[in-house]
């Protein structure tokens, strides 16, 4: 109904005016406190850092240069910025491991829920959704209490005499991984469940009927059918993992940084806002590439907006 060959008539003009009037307040707020600031961040990434934070309005490409490279203070030679690269590498590595971990725990769980009687499924899903909507800080903190040196696990192990000194679990890459799997697991189960619930089990029956074993049915019938769910879940877990801030901050204790913490550092002790801005844009770009790759694969199955 939008575009006719003759110019839009009065009714459509009115509809268009009403539409933009209704949209205006929301779009203004979003422009002011979401889209607009992103553009300013882009501008900041090509300015010169001020001595005490902030910027000097002088164009400079240093921030972008410093994202992955560094110049030696003494002889000006170029080299890879090992500190940044190792943080990028850790972010990507931990995010991938988190994704795999979430699949390992999430796939059987989603399958379990999808094979419950219809009436029970919503209740089981509620158990997944509740943690999803509870404070990420509280959930991270709950894990911290479990694994810290004075925490439940170490206390129990020492009390029972299995160990003499607490095992250092907190403030390691391992603890970040545990925390992120814990925090992002619901994001994996939700889309997996959605695709498994639609699974037609007569196809599974047909598979067994045609002499497939359980593993063959899983590999040749179930997995291909729920693949969209696995992809969606992986993206939903990978993207926030990559930009994680709270979990690595609490779990990593300041020495196991991820990109999010590196960005924060530039606005705190680092006092290099342009570098922080450039790192933010870099992170955003990586996330957007991942999201677009997802839309490409999922888009074929229908309009994506929900």
């Amino acid at each position, binding site marked *: *109904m*939008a*575009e*006719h*060959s*003759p110019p839009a*008539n*009065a*009714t*459509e003009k009115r509809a268009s005016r009403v539409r933009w009037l209704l949209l205006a307040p929301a779009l203004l707020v979003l422009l002011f406190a979401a889209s607009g600031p992103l553009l300013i961040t882009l501008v900041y990434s090509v300015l010169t850092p001020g001595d005490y934070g902030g910027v000097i309005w002088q164009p400079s490409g240093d921030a972008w240069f410093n994202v992955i490279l560094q110049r030696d203070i003494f002889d000006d030679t170029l080299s890879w910025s090992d500190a940044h690269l190792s943080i990028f590498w850790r972010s990507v590595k931990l995010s991938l491991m988190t994704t795999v971990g979430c699949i390992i725990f999430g796939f059987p769980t989603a399958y379990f829920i999808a094979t419950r009687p219809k009436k029970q499924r919503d209740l089981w899903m509620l158990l997944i959704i509740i943690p999803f909507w509870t404070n990420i800080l509280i959930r991270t903190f709950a894990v911290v209490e479990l694994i810290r040196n004075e925490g439940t696990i170490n206390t129990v192990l020492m009390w029972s005499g299995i160990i003499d000194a607490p095992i250092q679990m907190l403030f390691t890459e391992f603890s970040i991984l545990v925390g992120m799997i814990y925090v992002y697991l619901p994001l994996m189960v939700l889309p997996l469940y959605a695709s498994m619930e639609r699974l037609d089990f007569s196809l599974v029956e047909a598979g067994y009927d045609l002499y497939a074993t359980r593993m063959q049915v899983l590999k040749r019938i179930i997995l291909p059918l729920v693949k969209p769910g696995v992809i969606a879940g992986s993206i939903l877990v990978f993207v926030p993992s990559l930009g994680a801030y709270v979990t690595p901050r609490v779990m990593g204790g300041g020495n196991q940084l991820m990109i999010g913490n590196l960005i924060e550092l530039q606005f705190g002790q680092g006092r290099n806002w342009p570098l922080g801005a450039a790192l933010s844009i870099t992170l955003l770009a990586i996330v957007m590439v991942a999201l677009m790759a997802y839309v490409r694969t999922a888009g074929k199955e229908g309009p994506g907006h929900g």
Partner: protein
Amino acid sequence: MTAAISVRNLRKVYPGTPDVVALADASIDIQDNEFFTLLGPSGCGKTTLLRMIAGFEHPTSGTLTMHGEDLSDLPPYKRPVNTVFQSYALFPHMTVAQNIGFGLEMLGKPKAEIKQTVDEMMELVKMTEMADRQTGQISGGQQQRVALARALAPRPRVLLLDEPLSALDFKLRKDMQLELKRLQMETGITFIFVTHDQEEALTMSDRIAVMSAGTIRQIGGPRDIYDHPAERFVADFIGDTNFVPAEVATHKGTDADVTLSSGKVVTARMPEGEQMQGKVTLAVRPEHANISTEAEGLLPGTLSEVVYFGTDTHYHVALDDGTGFVVRRQNRPDETSGFSTGDRIGVQFAPGVGQVLRD
């Protein structure tokens, strides 16, 4: 007399790739007090046309007038027409009485008048006891009556009905068909009725417009449309039909002498204003034909199958020209055709029964 609704060259295109033409070029005049039916398969444009009259859709081109007044720029709430929706669209958060009174309330009628009209309407559709029920608590047939009463309450000049009976079961549908016809006579309101059910159309309508693929194929009274379909689509869509190849020998007005494949000549009916020559197709209704001995018949063939249907019997004939023909004969207790499968027989029909179809 000006028409109640006059549709001129109405066209509706939904842009897209490719564009979807919902209505190609429709022109109709619907008279006052008429029960007019738009009949056609789904996607033929009948609902689009109805929704344009209601004001829910806007024509791409063409004009739409009511008693000579242009409707184009009037929003739905300013058009003196009301709609009975296919889904009934009863407001779930209101009672039966509130639903029926809604239109009058919006028109700003005084409370007493609203109450009186609502009471009348509930009486009219026999829903008086249900006045305070929620719409979710009444049956499908009752919802149908409420939807009807709600649309009638503001006394519209034209009532639009969008397949209102399609959700009802067979028995209820039959009752409602008569009920609707009665209401239309009693109220004297013009009804425009949309359906894909040919039988419904034939029983209720004063006139029918048969539509397909966004085009109006034929307009006429039920009998006219059934007995004299103007083209193959209409003949095929309404009732069962035999298509018989023939060749026009001579014609005068709507009478044409045609030669059949057997060489015999019979008088058939030509659509008004047509001057067709050469090869044509005749439509012959199964119940308008009969079987006889090979010598007596117009078309010779072999009786291939006899199917008993209770009220009538179908005789499937394999004609010598290679086509098939079905004859339907009503069963009588004291009578049999005397033919059985494999017999050589002839198919017969009276002069004027065959209808020449437009290409």
